[in-house]
């Protein structure tokens, strides 16, 4: 199959075949990270610019490592070290970067739609590494790869996503991705955190987390953003952890051997009980490992590697 896309802005733009192809390509790249010399010359001479306007550990290191393992050159811009602090607009920054002829820009930005804004105006490819509460496609792809590896399939599974769905780009991308691959996605959390019309993306809503977890194959907890505390989305972190946190008792409602996932960073004792986060069913670090493989696949495919 041929992969013709120039940008990866969201799972929204991918069909089932695209997703399968990316996951297969990612699986084939996993082996590179297991070698002693973790580098192949595939993208030698190509350059990738990482523009990160939000703090990030996993995504940023993962993209950078993915690029370097494929021998591409990488350049990083953060809000603090760029001319943003001097008042330069995103467009001006990006056009200046573009003038230096990179092959691909990877952007993380707090404003939903920022990668789309750039993709419409730049000649190079754009990867969305998370835009506001909109999408985080590479995260959903690595989540799907992790589930597929552990459970052998995605089709027919019940995926439960718990937490602040309203403000979560991970939730949106995973709802779109897993449902496109034939899974059932149920979202749960305080009603203040379930946005109107989320069903239109393919999710089912169950406001009772215990009921939602019944028979789940995958339990995904989302990070509670403590900085949103002043918006009265729930009374206290204590009450949240009691009513919506994933603990061992609640996890019993899921299927035996259900996977526990989290996009990170974790608030231990809030959305995930430490016994669950660090327990035998947690695949959180596998997610991170798969992140590198998925991002290698994306860089490879978007820079023309998929063409026959």
């Amino acid at each position, binding site marked *: 199959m041929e992969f013709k896309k120039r940008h990866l802005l969201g799972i929204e733009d991918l069909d089932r075949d695209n997703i399968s192809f990316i996951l297969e390509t990612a699986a084939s790249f996993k082996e590179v990270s297991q070698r002693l010399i973790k580098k192949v010359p595939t993208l030698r001479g190509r350059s990738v610019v990482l523009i990160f306007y939000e703090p990030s550990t996993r995504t940023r290191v993962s993209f950078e490592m993915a690029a370097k393992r494929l021998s591409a050159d990488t350049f990083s811009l953060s809000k603090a070290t760029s001319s943003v602090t001097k008042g330069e*607009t*995103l*467009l001006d920054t990006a056009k200046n970067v573009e003038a230096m002829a990179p092959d691909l820009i990877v952007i993380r*930005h*707090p*404003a*939903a*739609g*920022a990668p*789309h*804004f750039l993709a*419409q105006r730049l000649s190079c490819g754009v990867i969305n590494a998370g*835009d*506001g*509460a*909109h*999408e985080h496609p590479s995260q959903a792809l690595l989540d799907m790869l992790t589930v597929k590896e552990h459970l052998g399939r995605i089709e027919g599974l019940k995926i439960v996503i718990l937490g602040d769905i*309203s403000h979560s*780009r991970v939730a*949106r991308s995973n709802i779109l991705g897993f449902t496109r691959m034939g899974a059932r996605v149920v979202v749960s959390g305080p009603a203040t955190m379930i*946005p*109107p*019309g*989320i069903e*239109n*993306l393919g999710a089912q809503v169950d406001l009772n987390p215990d009921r939602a977890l019944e028979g789940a194959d995958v339990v995904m907890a989302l990070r509670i953003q403590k900085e949103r505390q002043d918006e009265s989305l729930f009374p206290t972190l204590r009450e949240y952890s009691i009513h919506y946190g994933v603990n061992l008792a609640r996890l019993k409602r899921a299927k035996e051997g259900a996977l526990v996932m989290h996009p990170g960073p974790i608030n231990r004792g809030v959305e995930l009980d430490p016994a669950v986060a660090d327990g035998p069913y947690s695949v959180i670090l596998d997610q991170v490992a798969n992140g590198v493989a998925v991002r290698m696949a994306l860089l490879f495919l978007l820079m023309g590697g998929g063409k026959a």
Partner: protein
Amino acid sequence: MKVLIKGGRLLDPASNTDGERDVLVDGATIAAVGPNIEPPGDAKVVDASGLWVMPGLIDMHVHLREPGQEYKENIATGTLAAAAGGFTTVCCMANTDPVNDTPAVTEFILKKALKEGSARVLPVGAVSKGLEGKELAEMGEMQAAGTIAASDDGRSVMDVRLMRRALEYARGLDLLIISHPEDHNLTRHGVIHEGEVSTRLGLDGMPAQAEEIAVARELSLLELTRGRLHFAHVSTRGAVQAIKRAKDRGLAATAEVTPHHFTLTHEATAAYDPDFKMNPPLRPEEDIKALKEGLADGTIDAIATDHAPHAPWEKEVEFVYAPFGVVGLETALAVTMRLVDEGVLELLDAVKKLTSGPAKILGIDAGRLSEGAVADIVLFDPGKSWVVDPEAFLSKGKNSAFKGMTLKGAVALTLFEGNPVFDPEGLVS
């Protein structure tokens, strides 16, 4: 100068006239209206056959940005854009820099308009000092200097006690209060309508209820204070219904709607294009339907543009960071005519929403075409199709939500007090 407009189809809602009439203009006044007027020897004759002859339009809601933000628009360019759109009277909102909250600013605007304007400018003064919603601005002094109404447009007067005082005090002045109905506590961080589109795009939403709660609050206050209250840019079904019930009860409430709100839905924001970002936001189809019903049954008295020009570089940013607002002066008439084609409004009714409708709300003698009236006249070519190209606008603002759309009907000539302020084909000049 005498001008005889000959052979056109006269549309004058004030006199309920729709028929072939000639109009003789003498200086700044309409000297005669009637069939087959013989051209006086010194008159310039304009062949208006195939054209519609209407009163100069009145836009009771524009932002001219002067003083203070002349890089977005100024009185000269804003009124030129008005003339190009067929408007001869515009009411400019108070959110300038400095705010129009003192007679000095009002006088400045009027003086500039007289000197540089291509249309009549009626300033709207602030309700509260600095639009801060804390203390009343000098509404009486501003009215004496020439304001036509008072409004904190762009913001709601959130302090309900202050709004009560404003309505009461304005009643003593017989001054119209214009409400921007929005409960800011419900719209905080919001950038588009709260609904399935905001959820899909991951953008913070502004629920319809933010507008409806504010409308209900103002109507409840109006019951207490009486006085005259006008609602700016009504955009939801609930707001239309509440205003209809209030009118049925005899309250002196009126309302306007913008062309973008009755034409475009929130789906238009799906590509994160800031040219579709405005406040109130574009709403779902069912609200549009209610707005059209409100126009048809008279609940909504006027069509106003909320012309809000911004510099291109201000809109060329991430959707979330872009300022609210779209321009509207140069597209409003043709977009309104779509309502006639759709069968929502009769032709005279559509013209009324842009002429005698707002004139009545404002209590001004304008928006009519009869002997003795001021010669504010627009000629409209109903058959001419054109594609909206913001770069061709006379406004400095290019932020149009109608860009690229094909519209039917174009302004052929605008006379303001008898002067050809927009005459692209040289009919008079």
